[in-house]
């Protein structure tokens, strides 16, 4: 029974992906992609990866969808229709064959993976107790492979600096203009009602993330979505990017991470190792700071480069 469900899910995913790629309607493709993201979230749940499922649904479907829709609207405003409608014949046969071959080879490799499958699950579980955590995914993200998570945060910040650097010189340091010309009423309503719940869910996620599925990325994404909702509804303006507090919040998470990392050199077994006694509090503390940083970074990435000149 569950296999039938899986097959239907996979068929739906592939059909949606094909639709997104071949359809002529740009907006339709984006909406299709959002649906694809949500469906994919279910797929991840079927793969018994609830952590990923939450992340995928929030980021893959939600934030990316918002980003794309805004971009589509922007391009529609900026580009003359005749520039859009260049009817060049697309050569599709050769790329289709090549892509198909790559996919076939991949499929063959996936089927030919060795059995029994190699897995680090036993080691990950065995090492869990030294971290005091209950969720092995969190342990991988914040202990075993903490360096990846830390540097990925730097990647996010570089991306944000890169996005900011795309502003006009005059607007640099200012704020993004998110508020649309006409704000639909329901949006305002949602923006008033949802954020308290969102914050609550986020705090819960960080807290349980140590032991159960969920964690800093998921919480950060929810917070980012709430912040965007508030800004889109025009309840609060986007903060100016030169604000010291904002920048401190963005850099705070990774900075704390680095500090604790080097603390490990002094009091534990090296960089990014935690003293066993206080491992869990340290990790939860880092997660909390990271959640704020991630929320800020993701929201500002969606908001885009500043386009209002700074006040001063």
């Amino acid at each position, binding site marked *: 029974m569950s296999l039938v469900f899986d097959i239907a899910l996979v068929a739906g995913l592939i059909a949606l992906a094909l639709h997104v790629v071949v359809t002529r309607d740009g907006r339709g*493709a984006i909406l299709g992609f959002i649906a694809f*993201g949500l469906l994919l979230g279910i797929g991840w749940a079927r793969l018994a990866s609830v952590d990923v499922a939450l992340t995928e649904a929030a980021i893959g479907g939600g934030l990316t969808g918002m980003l794309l829709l805004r971009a589509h609207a922007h391009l529609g405003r900026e580009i003359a229709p005749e520039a859009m409608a260049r009817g060049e014949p697309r050569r599709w046969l050769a790329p289709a064959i090549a892509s198909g071959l790559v*996919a*076939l080879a991949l499929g063959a490799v996936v089927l030919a993976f060795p059995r029994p*499958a190699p897995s680090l699950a036993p080691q990950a579980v065995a090492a869990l107790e030294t971290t005091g955590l209950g969720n092995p995914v969190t342990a*991988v993200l914040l202990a075993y492979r903490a360096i990846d*998570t830390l540097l990925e945060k730097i*990647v996010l910040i570089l991306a944000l600096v890169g996005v900011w650097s795309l502003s006009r010189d005059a607007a640099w340091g200012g704020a993004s203009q998110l508020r649309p010309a006409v704000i639909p009423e329901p949006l305002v309503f949602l923006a008033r009602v949802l954020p308290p719940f969102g914050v609550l869910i986020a705090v819960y996620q960080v807290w349980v993330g140590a032991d159960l599925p969920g964690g800093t990325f998921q919480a950060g994404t929810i917070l980012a979505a709430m912040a965007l909702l508030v800004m889109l509804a025009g309840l609060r303006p986007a903060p100016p990017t030169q604000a010291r507090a904002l920048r401190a919040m963005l850099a705070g998470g990774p900075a704390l991470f680095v500090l604790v990392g080097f603390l490990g050199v002094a009091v534990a077994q090296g960089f990014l190792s935690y003293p066993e006694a206080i491992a869990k509090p340290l990790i939860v503390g880092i997660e909390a700071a990271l959640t704020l940083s991630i929320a800020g970074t993701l929201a500002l990435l969606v908001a885009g*480069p500043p386009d209002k000149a700074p006040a001063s």
Partner: protein
Amino acid sequence: MSALALTSASLFGLCGAALVGIGLFGIVTNPDLLRRIIGFNILGAGIFLVFGAVARRGAAMGLGGDPVPQAMVITGIVVAFAATALAVALLRRLASLTGSATFDAATPAPPPRSDA
């Protein structure tokens, strides 16, 4: 459980492979840059599904999957989002500056002006 889990993992692995193919095709052939960015996301989804299949196959010790590839996927999704955001920001700026959303027709940039 394990046989079924393996079948299901393979199924999603194949789905990942198909999505990779579809994504690559979209990226290579689509002249619309925004659509190309969506293609990247589909390619990414396919790649992550392959990771997911690998993770699922590694289910052991009472875990539903190998946590290491799962963690990698989470990292990867965030990075992919950052990439999408940067690409979209570039595309919007390009459209604002030049009034077009294509880069293949663009000839090499004329000399930079120091006074600009």
